[in-house]
């Protein structure tokens, strides 16, 4: 069973790492639409997949946040990825299965997965 003592150990380890944490301004932001439309379309597993994938690859510079409805409900779940100094990329009709490739190709290697973007779906 999970105990609070375990959480204390995690805390102490996190404290050691706190000083070396990368500056948040340099962070890659993953913004998931979490309004009614996003949630109904499946945003929750997508969000959790991004966090899990970032944790698995130990990407300390990825921040996963939420936004409301941006008015394109038919394309939900929508995920926007903002890499500092680059243009925003919007992915539409996201699934947890698409997440690993986006993290690997886009966030790690800097090549957006064009076929998953909203631009390619609107053609």
């Amino acid at each position: 069973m999970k105990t609070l003592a375990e959480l204390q150990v995690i805390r102490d380890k996190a404290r050691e790492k706190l000083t070396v944490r990368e500056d948040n301004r340099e962070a890659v932001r993953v913004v998931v639409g979490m309004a009614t439309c996003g949630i109904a379309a499946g945003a929750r597993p997508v969000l959790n997949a991004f966090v899990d994938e970032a944790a698995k690859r130990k990407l300390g510079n990825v921040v996963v946040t939420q936004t409301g409805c941006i008015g394109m409900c038919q394309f939900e779940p929508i995920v926007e990825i903002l890499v500092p100094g680059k243009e925003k990329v919007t992915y539409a009709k996201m699934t947890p299965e698409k997440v690993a490739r986006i993290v690997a190709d886009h966030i790690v290697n800097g090549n957006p997965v064009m076929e998953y973007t909203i631009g390619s779906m609107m053609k």
Partner: protein
Amino acid sequence: MRELSLYILDIAQNSISAGASLIEISVEENTQSDFLTITITDNGCGMSSEQISLVTDPFYTTRTTRRVGLGLPLFRMAAEQAGGNLGIESVLGKGTTVAANFVLSHIDRAPLGDLQGTITALIRLNPDRDFLFRHSIDQRSVTVDTRVLRNVLGEIALNTPEVMSWISEYIDEQEKTLSGLLPGKTELL
């Protein structure tokens, strides 16, 4: 929406928009009376009585980006189609309580679904707010209170990846213990 846990996630978003610092989510299953009650209570900005009367109208919203607001109407529909109802109490400046009742064994009652996923998503996205989650089945219950976790963690954020995986596994264990899949202790009411 297919799962009641998704409605919980959606309604809790309203509490977040209302600026709540504490959001209490309670899921009570009572096999004797055959009722399931989901309550979401927040200490956010609250609503006027006029707003309360309008919020379950799908064409009422405070948003300016679109003209529909489906969160509460859908939740009410889910409750009503399962032989239940939805009640809203709110005081301006104090907070809001949304309570939905369902007939537990009703054939049209949606399953609770991934409660763990909903609670972890909420904590993860709102590390500065507190959540009190309580799930009970008859006399047994499990509780997750981020205020208790915060006491242990000190200045370490709740959404630190290692902390989040602990929380996620903790909730999973609690839920499994409650449903009898894992041996272990649940609190007796």
